[in-house]
């Protein structure tokens, strides 16, 4: 290498360095899709909006052709021992509301996972955008005790009205009947 070449190489190296730094910075930023952090689960696209972004995101996705809200369910992560697969910047809460949206024109699906804290277990309803969520939101309320603000009929759907507790919560015991080898008080 001649001496004349040296400054040029330096320049190239520093340019390369800054490009590297940009790339590293870009990689450190959480990947965004439709303005919210995104993750991929077995090839399926999962968006992670905050509770504040949730309704606006569903609304803009609806404008983009996600006309049908196929599914809405709750998950209680109490006692979940493994990694939650959440993008950086999303703090894990006890409850999650999982919403499935379907785009018939592009034949594509998108899933939303919204973190709902235990202390303040409520979320805005999707009813004004997708009336199809009326029953599923009632089910989530019934089973997990997550209230949907603005829902026209926030009552229990599967359990009787006077039922106490929310059965699908992880701290709600599974009912058991003692049988001979499991839990019976006396041997026969």
């Amino acid at each position, binding site marked *: 290498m001649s001496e004349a070449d040296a400054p040029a190489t330096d320049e190239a190296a520093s340019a390369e360095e800054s490009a590297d730094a940009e790339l590293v910075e870009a990689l450190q930023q959480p990947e965004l899709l439709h303005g919210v952090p995104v993750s991929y*689960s*077995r090839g*399926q696209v*999962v968006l992670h909006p905050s509770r504040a972004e949730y309704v606006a995101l569903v609304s803009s996705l*609806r*404008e983009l052709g996600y*006309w*049908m*809200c*196929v*599914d809405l*369910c709750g*998950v*209680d992560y109490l006692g*979940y*021992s*493994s*990694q939650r*697969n959440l993008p950086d910047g999303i703090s894990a809460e006890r409850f999650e509301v*999982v919403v*499935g949206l379907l785009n*018939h*024109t592009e*034949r594509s*699906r998108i*899933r939303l996972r919204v973190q709902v804290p235990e202390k303040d277990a409520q979320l805005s309803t999707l*009813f*004004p*955008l*997708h*009336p*199809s*969520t*009326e*029953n*599923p939101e009632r*089910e989530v309320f019934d*089973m997990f005790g997550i209230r949907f603000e603005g829902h*026209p*009929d926030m*009552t*229990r*759907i*599967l*359990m*009787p*009205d006077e039922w106490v507790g929310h*059965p*699908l919560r992880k701290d*709600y015991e*599974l*009912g058991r009947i003692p049988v001979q080898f499991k839990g019976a008080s006396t041997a026969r």
Partner: protein
Amino acid sequence: MTTTDLNTLNSALASLTADGSVLRLSETEAEQKSGYQAPTEEGLGERMIMNMGPQHPSTHGVLRLVLEMDGETITRSKPVIGYLHTGMEKTGEDLTYLQGATNVTRMDYAAPLFNELVFSLAVEELLGIEIPDRAQWIRMLMSELNRISSHLLFMATNGMDLGAVGMMLYGWREREEVLRFFEAVTGLRMNHNYIRPGGVAADLPGGWDEELSGILDIIPDRLAEFDLLMTGQPIWRDRLQGVGVITAEEALSLGATGPILRSTGSAWDLRRDQPYLKYDQVEFDVIVGSFGDCFDRYAIRLQEIRESIRIVRQIIDQMPEGDYRSQDKKVTPPPRARIDESMEALIHHFKIFTEGFKVPEGEVYVAVESPRGELGCYIVSDGSSKPFRMHIRGPSFVNLQTLPHLMKDSFLADTVAIISSVDPIMGEIDR
């Protein structure tokens, strides 16, 4: 798939959220207020709150409807469900992945194989294993036959609900042919636990194709008889045509799938539009209606039986040789003969059936086209041998939301036709 656009969708949404066809009364209120309602200041005239069901022959189990009537006309209504709720999603969290199929198969009891299929597909997606070709074709064969038997059951109950009592017997008779084949293959007529994570429980018995061809030869003739008995009859048409009408935009907003969505002219069928198993290798038509009424939904199901027969014939021709379950030792127990000669094989077998196999952590949603629409399964795994959360998206549960809109301003006598045309299965709704 559809010719609609966002503007029509938005106007349908506005009318859906504002039209007040849903009666929002709690169960206790409904009991207190049942009977005569005097005119109110809001301009409502004399009304009657009426409870229909849960014990009513046309409610397909234990569906209860609270109806607000103005004379013979239904103004508002509310389906009340939960009478069959047994907490199957909760139970599913306490069963291993191998036991899980026995649990989910009891949800939609008219189409049990679809429940097993969607659960198995979700588990396999999490496991990341490949299923042998033959297993996939067997699964496809069994689910198409199940679609036939489920639609035949619909023909029977729909006929009886509308007064064609003979139809009850004919529908049941044809369904029995298919169930007999299921018994030969799976050992059971219902709740088979045949499709399992990793493949199917057993290979098809010898001579299955001849037996099946026999059934396939009978059914089309019988379908022609159904046409004679019902489709062309003026009474039948009068009871169904123009009754319980829904538009494509309403169906999309209400999340309706399956024959309800297709009756509006929207050609959406997961078998064609998001193919799973080997549906991209068989030829069939997606049947659509044009008026979105009860008659269209009846005709679509009748025609879907014919399409399923067409698919089954292709499956018989193309059925490959090979394994009927994955040879991945992690999920598949050793062959029976090995257990007699090898201690390790016995331990392996014992471990799989007691502890179960571990499924890598993650979450996944998988959907298949059941006879009633999109049947989905959402599983969250924490890496153990039991699902952390197992949620089934039952098509009937979501489709039921269309009922108040279908029944608005129709006669009480038509409710039976409308409920029947939605084809709800309460086991799946209440889970």
